[in-house]
C-alpha cells in the first residue's frame, strides 16, 4: 500500500507547479466531477441546521435500514450494467416475488387468506419460500439473459418486455381466488420477525435483521465479482465481448448467468420488501429499478461497460438515500422527488461520460 500522506504531499506539489489557468481548470474539474457529492453535502448540512433530529443515531439507523433494503437490487442490476446493458424488469420482478412471499406467509387464521390450505408458517417454511422466490426471480432473469445472449438483442428491449409480462403475471396473481386485486396483508408474525426482527437499537430506532442479511449479501457479491472466474469473465465481456470471446470466455453463459444472478437478487429484494412494508400491493416495486440504476451510475458502475466496484455501489446507494432522507425530512413534495430523481440520473450519466472524456 502507498502512503496516503505522501500521496497528498505529491498532489499538493503538483498543484503548486500548475499555471494559474491550469489551477482554475483543476478546481472546475474537481467541482463538476463531484457535483452530486457536493449537492449531497449541502442538503445534509442544510437539513442538519433546519431539523436537529437529522443528525441523531436514530436517523442514522433509519438510513442504514433504507440502504440495506435498496442495496440488493442495485447489486443485481450492477452486473447487467457492467455488461453494458441494463435491466428494466427489476422492480416488477421484486413486486411479483413480494406478492408470492406474502401469499405463502400469510397468517394461518387470517380471514382474507388467499390460499387457505397452506401449511403453518415456521422457519422451515419461511426458508423454503425464500428459496422459491429467489428461484422465480432467477428464472425470469435467465429468460432476460437468454434473449440478450442468444440473439444479441438489446437488454432495453428484452427487459422492457419482461417488465410488462411480469406486470401481467402480477395482475393475474392478485386476482386469484377472488382476491380482486386487493393488497395482500395479514402477513404472519414469524415472517415479519425473520426480516424485521430487531437486532439491536441505535438511538431509539431498531436495526432490523435484514441489515445483517445485506452485509452477508455484499460479502457474497464481492467474492463473486473479485475472486471467481465468473466475475473476471463478466468484466472481460463488459469491456470487450469480441476480445473476451477470442480469449476463450464463454460469452453466452456469462451473460445468461449475470442476468440470472441479478434476477435472484430481485427475488430476494421482493422477499424483504414484502415484510418491510407490511403488505404487498399491485404497485409494490414499481420503478424500483430507477433507484438501483441511479445508485450504480453514481457509484461509478459506468454504462461504458466493464468497470465498477462493489464499494462504489454501496456508496451510490448511500448517496441517493441520504439525499432522499434529507429531502423527505425537509418536507419536499413527493412529485418533486420524481423530477429530482430524473435529474440525478441524467446528471450522473453526464458525470460518467465527463470522467471518461477528461481521462482520455
Amino acid at each position, binding site marked *: 500500500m502507498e502512503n496516503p500522506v505522501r500521496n497528498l504531499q505529491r498532489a499538493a506539489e503538483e498543484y503548486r507547479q500548475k499555471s494559474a489557468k491550469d489551477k482554475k481548470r483543476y478546481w472546475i474539474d474537481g467541482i463538476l466531477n463531484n457535483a452530486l457529492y457536493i449537492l449531497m453535502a449541502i442538503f445534509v448540512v442544510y437539513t442538519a441546521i433546519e431539523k436537529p433530529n437529522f443528525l441523531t443515531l436514530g436517523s442514522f439507523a433509519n438510513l442504514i435500514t433504507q440502504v440495506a433494503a435498496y442495496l440488493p437490487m442495485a447489486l443485481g442490476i450492477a452486473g447487467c450494467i457492467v455488461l*453494458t446493458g441494463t435491466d428494466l424488469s427489476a422492480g416488477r420482478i421484486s413486486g411479483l416475488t413480494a406478492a408470492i412471499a406474502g401469499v405463502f406467509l400469510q397468517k394461518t387464521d387470517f380471514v382474507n387468506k388467499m390460499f387457505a390450505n397452506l401449511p403453518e408458517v415456521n422457519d422451515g417454511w419461511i426458508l423454503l419460500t425464500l428459496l422459491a422466490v429467489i428461484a422465480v426471480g432467477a428464472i425470469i432473469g435467465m429468460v432476460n439473459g437468454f434473449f440478450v445472449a442468444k440473439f444479441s438483442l438489446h437488454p432495453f428491449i428484452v427487459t422492457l418486455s419482461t417488465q410488462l409480462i411480469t406486470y401481467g403475471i402480477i395482475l393475474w396473481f392478485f386476482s386469484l381466488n377472488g382476491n380482486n386485486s386487493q393488497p395482500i396483508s395479514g402477513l404472519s408474525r414469524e415472517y415479519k420477525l425473520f426480516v424485521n426482527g430487531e437486532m439491536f437499537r441505535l438511538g431509539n430506532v431498531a436495526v432490523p435483521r435484514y441489515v445483517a442479511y445485506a452485509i452477508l449479501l455484499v460479502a457474497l457479491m464481492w467474492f463473486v465479482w473479485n475472486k471467481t472466474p465468473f466475475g473476471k469473465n463478466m468484466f472481460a465481456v463488459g469491456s470487450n465481448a469480441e476480445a473476451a470471446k477470442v480469449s476463450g470466455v464463454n460469452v453466452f453463459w456469462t451473460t445468461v448467468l449475470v442476468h440470472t444472478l441479478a434476477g435472484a437478487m430481485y427475488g430476494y429484494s421482493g422477499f424483504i420488501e414484502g415484510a418491510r412494508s407490511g403488505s404487498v400491493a399491485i404497485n409494490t416495486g414499481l420503478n424500483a429499478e430507477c433507484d438501483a440504476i441511479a445508485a450504480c451510475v453514481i457509484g461509478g458502475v459506468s454504462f461504458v461497460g466493464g468497470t465498477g466496484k462493489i464499494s462504489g455501489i454501496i456508496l451510490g446507494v448511500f448517496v441517493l438515500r441520504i439525499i432522499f432522507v434529507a429531502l423527505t425530512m425537509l418536507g*419536499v413534495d413527493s412529485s418533486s422527488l420524481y423530477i429530482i430523481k430524473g435529474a440525478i440520473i441524467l446528471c450522473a450519466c453526464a458525470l460518467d461520460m465527463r470522467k471518461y472524456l477528461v481521462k482520455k
Partner: protein
Amino acid sequence: MEEHKETQTEEQLPKFRGLYRHVKISVKALDCIIIACIAVIVILVALDLRNPGFTIQFDSRGGTDVPSHNQMYGERLEAPEPPTREGYRFTGWYTDSACFDPWDMENGKIECDLTLYAGWEKLE
C-alpha cells in the same frame, strides 16, 4: 476550409464504448448538462421549501367535504372536524378505500402524501 475544420473537430471527439457508443458530445456540453441538472434540483427543492410538508387529503366518501391540509414529516395527524352524512355514523379515517385499515391516530406518523377515507356505519 470551414468544412475541413468541422470534420476535424468531429474526429477529435473521442469515441465511447458500451451504451454510450453512439453518443457524440463535448466536455463543454456535458458541463452544461451537469450544471442544468443541479440547478433544476436546487430550484425544485427551494420552491418546495417555501411551502413545505405533505398534503393530507380526506375522501369523505359521500359525507360532507373535508378540506385537505399540509403537515410536516414525522408529525402526528391533526384530525380534522369529522364529516357528517345522513343516515350514517362516522367510524374514523382509514388508509384504504375499502375501509379495512384504520389510521393509527396515536402512533401513526406522516411520512408521505396521504389520502384518508372516511368510514361509515349505517344507522338502523
